[in-house]
């Protein structure tokens, strides 16, 4: 890695993986719960929502980082919101151009990406202090982490609630779908179960490691 021209490659790679695993927005930081619970009724919806959020995240973090030296701190939040809203609008048009069916399925949650705290949080806590490439890599990681989180919910809910995965029927006609899984309570059930799995895993890892490790920087 030291041969790379990047000024601090290890830290950049770390920056990127931070969002995928250690600081996963869904399961660790618990941010963006509204789309997480609402649109994950199917794997396709979850994947598209994750990718849309990731694109907004990367583009806005890039622009915020490029403008970081000229934006006065008094108006920085207003600037970030304008930038985020811009990219959400662009993605909104993009999804309509790709598929109206998907656009209808995601509904108001595309526009609501504007208020997703992951994006404003990244802009404020990371992109406004780092050069564009590092900021965008970190945003890619966070977006990927969010997509993984949504997919974890979306696949389970679609398999149980509709007997299908990515629209492909898995169990044949005799399967009685668990309708509750595609209703709002199902979102809470599945999210809770995933959190239980991760908490159990973390506890087990801590019990097995000889020295106590901190949760945020367990390399």
């Amino acid at each position, binding site marked *: 890695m030291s041969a790379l021209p990047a000024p601090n490659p290890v830290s950049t790679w770390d920056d990127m993986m931070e969002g995928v695993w250690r600081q996963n927005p869904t399961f660790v930081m618990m941010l963006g719960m509204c789309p997480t619970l609402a649109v994950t009724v199917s794997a396709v919806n979850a994947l598209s929502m994750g990718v849309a959020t990731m694109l907004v995240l990367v583009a806005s973090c890039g622009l915020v980082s490029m403008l970081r030296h000229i934006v006065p701190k*008094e*108006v920085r939040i207003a600037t970030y919101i304008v930038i985020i809203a811009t990219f959400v609008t662009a993605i909104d048009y993009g999804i309509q151009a790709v598929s*109206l069916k998907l656009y209808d399925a995601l509904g108001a949650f595309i526009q609501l990406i504007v208020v997703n705290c992951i994006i404003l949080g990244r802009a404020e806590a990371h992109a406004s202090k780092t050069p564009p490439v590092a900021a965008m890599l970190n945003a890619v990681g966070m977006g990927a982490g969010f997509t993984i989180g949504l997919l974890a919910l979306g696949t389970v809910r679609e398999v149980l609630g509709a007997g299908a995965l990515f629209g492909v029927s898995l169990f044949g006609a005799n399967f009685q779908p668990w*309708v509750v899984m595609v209703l709002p309570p199902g979102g809470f059930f599945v999210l809770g179960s995933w959190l239980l799995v991760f908490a159990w895993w973390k506890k087990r890892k801590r019990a097995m490691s000889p020295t106590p490790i901190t949760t945020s920087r367990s390399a």
Partner: protein
Amino acid sequence: MNMPPSSALPVPATQTPTRAMVLTLGLVAAICGLIIVSAYEGSLSAVRDNRRVALERAITKVLPGANKTISYLALPDGAIVAASGGDAPVGALRFHAAYDAKGSLMGIAAEGSAKGYADTVRILFGYSPPCACIVGIGVINMRETPGIGDKILTDTAFLANFKALDTRLNAELSGLANEVKTVKHGTKTQAWQVDAISGATITSRAVGRAINEASQALLPRLVPKLEQIQKAP
């Protein structure tokens, strides 16, 4: 809280001049405006194509065999004009005439909507002029409960209501001779009644109301002028 001695205070950051703030916000807004306009312009034709294809697909579903569709507006004064791309005038009702391969009118598709269980249920229905009845429905948009309300798409007994749902006009041509009405499951006796799905009565009623309201408004304007659109232009 005790204030530290003033000498220990950090040097206060200089206040950013208002001019700089306004200039920055203006610059950011200009960049963002440019991005939005280019995204809009860039996606416009693809979005329009998508909408057209989706509409055509929905029309072919309620009027199988439709070869060509043309959108019209029924104006409040009774005139029927071809729909242009822009906004429809106030009070105009949009409908779509479907023509077969020979170019003669095979049916009318129109949209209706009514409040369902979760949200508005928007449907498209096909009207056949010779039998003066509804011959098919499709859902444009709904958020009804999966597995319960969304049975209106799949329940064959419910869809059989719309093979020939009577929507004849009264003698004065001012409204339907018999209001389209959703009745409790298993109590349908007349050709203008809709037999509700047991367990999904609210959504079934929304479909009945949507058809009733839309046809009460559209058919009195449309039926006297059917001659005008009999042939594809």
